[in-house]
């Protein structure tokens, strides 16, 4: 505690959100008591806590399944998006020809194509991963394409002057230059992947004995178990924070090694 920087950090960064948390919790509790709101509309904080503890086995299993769906979908997006961006970087014709259809992935309402995905791939984990992929691939594709194509003209000339092959230019110039862009895209994509997995489970998460958070949202809402629904929402949020945080941390580590920022200073 003697470290003034740590104290400063605690006071500036940790204390205000904690205070806000307590205040909101107090208002919430107050509203349920004073206005006498029925539990199926707004359960009190302690009822949500009890529901979370009571259903913790179910919540943990569901979170694990959703995490798997989100991670598979995210990794598929990371690899697929980067690979397609590499193709885009090789030809303007391919890029300009395909890009409008890539935007389609970003703009299509998932509700509209969920029935199609279910028709083609059935209910279950695989369809969940497909939905996750559709929702999370665009940020990676977009930023990787930007990174792979925004190369300094002199550097491209340098590679040309030395008779570099397409492969050498991609591997030694374009891809390394795109790494910070891909990291940025991956952060956005990881957040989207959690949403994608939950939305995917909401529509397609049936068909096996295991149920993810998205299915629980659907089930708890239709049973009017609002306290348990709250617990599911909190679990979903925590999962999202965990996955986003992990990807951010890995990204920052890669970036700091990348250009030697931390090597000497």
């Amino acid at each position: 505690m003697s470290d003034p920087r740590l104290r400063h950090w605690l006071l500036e960064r940790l204390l205000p959100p904690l205070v806000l948390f307590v205040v909101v919790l107090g208002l919430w509790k107050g509203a349920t008591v004073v206005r006498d709101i029925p539990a199926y509309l707004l359960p009190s904080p302690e009822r949500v806590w009890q529901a979370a503890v009571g259903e913790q086995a179910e919540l943990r299993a569901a979170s694990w399944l959703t995490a798997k769906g989100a991670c598979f979908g995210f990794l598929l997006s990371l690899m697929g998006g980067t690979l397609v961006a590499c193709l885009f970087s090789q030809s303007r014709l391919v890029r300009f020809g395909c890009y409008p259809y890539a935007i389609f992935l970003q703009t299509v309402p998932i509700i509209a194509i969920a029935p199609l995905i279910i028709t083609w791939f059935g209910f279950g984990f695989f369809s969940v991963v497909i939905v996750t992929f559709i929702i999370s691939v665009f940020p990676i594709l977009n930023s990787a394409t930007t990174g792979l194509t925004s190369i300094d003209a002199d550097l491209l000339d340098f590679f040309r002057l030395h008779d570099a092959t397409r492969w050498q230019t991609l591997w030694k110039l374009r891809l390394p230059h795109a790494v910070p862009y891909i990291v940025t895209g991956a952060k956005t994509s990881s957040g989207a992947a959690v949403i994608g997995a939950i939305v995917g489970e909401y529509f397609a998460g049936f068909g096996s004995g295991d149920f993810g958070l998205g299915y629980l949202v659907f089930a708890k809402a239709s049973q009017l178990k609002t306290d348990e629904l709250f617990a599911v929402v909190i679990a979903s949020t925590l999962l999202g924070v965990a996955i986003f945080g992990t990807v951010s941390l890995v990204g920052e580590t890669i970036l700091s090694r990348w250009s030697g920022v931390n090597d000497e200073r």
Partner: protein
Amino acid sequence: MSEESLITATSLGKEFAGGQAALADVDLQIEAGDFVSIVGPSGCGKSTLLRLVAGLDSPTSGTLQIDECSPGEKKRESRRTAFVFQDATLLPWRNVVENIRLPLELDGVSNSASNVAIDASLQLIGLTADDRAKFPRMLSGGMRMRVSLARALVTEPDLLLLDEPFGALDDMMRQRLNEDLLRVWTEKKPTALFVTHNVAEAVFLSQRILVMSSSPGRIVAEIPIPFEFPRPPELRATAEFARLAGEVSAALREGQS
């Protein structure tokens, strides 16, 4: 001609799309081992001329021959061209040694085989062992340009093309790099084509200065610089140096009017 010139341009012209003429009617002869500077106001096409020689662009009229070939069909095995840009154009994710290794890597030289050439190049340009593992962002502008020069020299080029490489540096650093460049050139004797808008720099370095004027770019004067090599830094303070610099400046002014 008993001795063929290395570079021969005959009524060379370059028009960009839209009909804007960057170069018109440029005749040029450069012998192997010469140090020739091209000076001119910005936008006069001197960089375009250099890019044509490098084979990075192709002319729209006239002919350009290097070693009796066009720059496009360069005999890569027998001749090596190196190009130094205005910016250092280093890869930020590679350290000094890895940056200098790049041209050898692109030529398919193995790491173990390239180490000797890298060491020689580092030493030649005055970089120390401490600098080897540094990344570009840790280096000053002058140091980055040194690394860029070392990267150009590592392939032992016999044609060295420099496009205003010291334009962004302060005057002290520019003079020191001029001296380093000249020392390297006297040692290795590549044919050097140096583009600049700095008259003093051109006089100090070259055996011959080509003065260009703009719109369209053409060569308006050719001024030989008869100083012996090696040239000491004090040369810049002599009356003859001032006279030649004055002559180049006058030719530049005349070309603009």
